[in-house]
């Protein structure tokens, strides 16, 4: 896994080449590779060298289509909602992009509500757009308003780790107390549990495990949890 810096040429070639985050295709000049990196990080590729991406950690989210994010409603503009997803620009969410929403029956969102949504459009020259259902089936699929609970901010790598089912943290927390979690890849994790001290414990564990901060391992978290009275 070589480290690359922004602007480096990447010798990625395949008939069915797919570029992931941090890579950009440019018009080819005098036989040089048209693929350049746009961020610093580790360069990865799939086993058959058809998919390439750069893995890096950051705190600022850059929207990409089909990613699940957690947003905060900040305003209403006509039919749409303006939602802050931690990116450079505010995203817009169609008032009808919910399961079962019609012109008459619209979800009752307030300014400050939390939403679990999917980025449906992310173009560099346009505002990102969100939706709270699966566009094909028109079912919620878990998206929608998040009520109660607490929002935890973490680094982008941390929330990708939490999304990984084989990561130890959420199952470990779940074995100690019942909890609900929704992870957005924009560095936000929503946690709900009955007892506030459980939510606080989960929040502190996520912060401790975050590779941007403590980077604690499983044994460390177990010790940390037992010191916390949960």
């Amino acid at each position, binding site marked *: 896994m070589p480290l690359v810096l922004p602007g480096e040429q990447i010798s990625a070639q395949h008939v069915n080449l797919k570029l992931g985050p941090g890579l950009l295709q440019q018009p080819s000049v005098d036989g040089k590779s048209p693929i350049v990196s746009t961020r610093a990080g580790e360069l990865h590729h799939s086993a058959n060298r058809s998919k390439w991406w750069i893995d890096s950690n950051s705190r600022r989210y850059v929207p990409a289509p089909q990613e699940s994010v957690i947003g905060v409603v900040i305003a209403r503009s006509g039919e749409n909602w303006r939602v802050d997803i931690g990116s450079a620009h505010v995203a817009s969410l169609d008032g009808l992009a919910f399961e079962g929403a019609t012109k008459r029956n619209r979800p009752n969102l*307030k300014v*400050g509500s939390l939403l679990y949504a999917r980025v449906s459009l992310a173009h560099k020259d346009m505002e990102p757009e969100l939706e709270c259902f699966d566009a094909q089936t028109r079912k919620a699929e878990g998206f929608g308003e998040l009520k109660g609970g607490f929002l935890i901010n973490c680094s982008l790598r941390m929330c990708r780790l939490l999304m990984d089912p084989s990561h130890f943290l959420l199952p470990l927390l779940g074995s100690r107390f019942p909890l609900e979690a929704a992870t957005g890849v924009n560095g936000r994790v929503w946690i709900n549990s009955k007892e506030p001290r459980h939510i606080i414990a989960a929040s502190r564990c996520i912060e401790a495990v975050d590779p941007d901060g403590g980077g604690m391992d499983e044994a460390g978290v177990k010790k940390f949890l037992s010191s916390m009275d949960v």
Partner: protein
Amino acid sequence: MPRPPSPSIPEKEFVYGALKEKLRVDGRLPLEMRTPTITFGPELGWVECALGKTRVLAQVDAKMVKPLPERPLEGIITIHSEISPMASSDYEPGRPSDEEVTITRMLDKVLRRSDVVDKESLCILAGQRVWHLRLTIHCLADAGNMLDCACLAGVIAFKHFRRPEVEVVGEEVTVHHPSERAPVPLSMHHTPYCLTFAYFPDTSTAPVLDPSHLEQRLSAGLLSIALNAQRELCVVQKAGGVPLGADEILGIIDVAVDKAKELDRLVEQRLKEDWASRTVEVR
């Protein structure tokens, strides 16, 4: 770019609810401070101070200037502080936010107008040459309570700084290079520490010391107290509209006195450790 959105409804409800049960999101007690981490740089007067994830860097440098005509016997101290978007994406360059104005004014009150450094000792030759101390404060990361962190960094930087020794014979001023004669510490009157308490809209919720970013955003008022370990109050500043009784403020000041004493012990110990690790060569 609009102003940063205020915390969401679930965050607000959870923080208020937890604070009622005397629980804080980072697991601290209501009147518990994050322990400051103090790092000294290679140069004297270069200090990085961290309260949790809040980080502030302070640097002092000195140069010789002509004094102001109305104060020929006093040195000059200036404080430069700017909060750049490096600290947090909430801040914009160029346009000072309310918080930045508060921090700048408070730093001026705590570090300059409370006479921390003896200005007359900075005079070299009356009316002709004085030291001009410049304190630069860089806010590196904001995770709440940047004011206390900046004040702490600034005061430690003054304590850590040493100016070159000067010799005056008649009208002639000789500045000795640090390798010739050991630089001398600044003559300081006292060391004030700033402590900030956050008050919440629900008056039954107890105030919290050293608020985190979220607590600060959700607070209805902040009370900043600057005082030294000798129980001398320098500044009491209250921002926000929470009504407070006199006895409440006196109670909080008693808490602040204890914390200032703790801080003073920590700072003195760290300065001593740092000084022991430095070898000053004098030929």
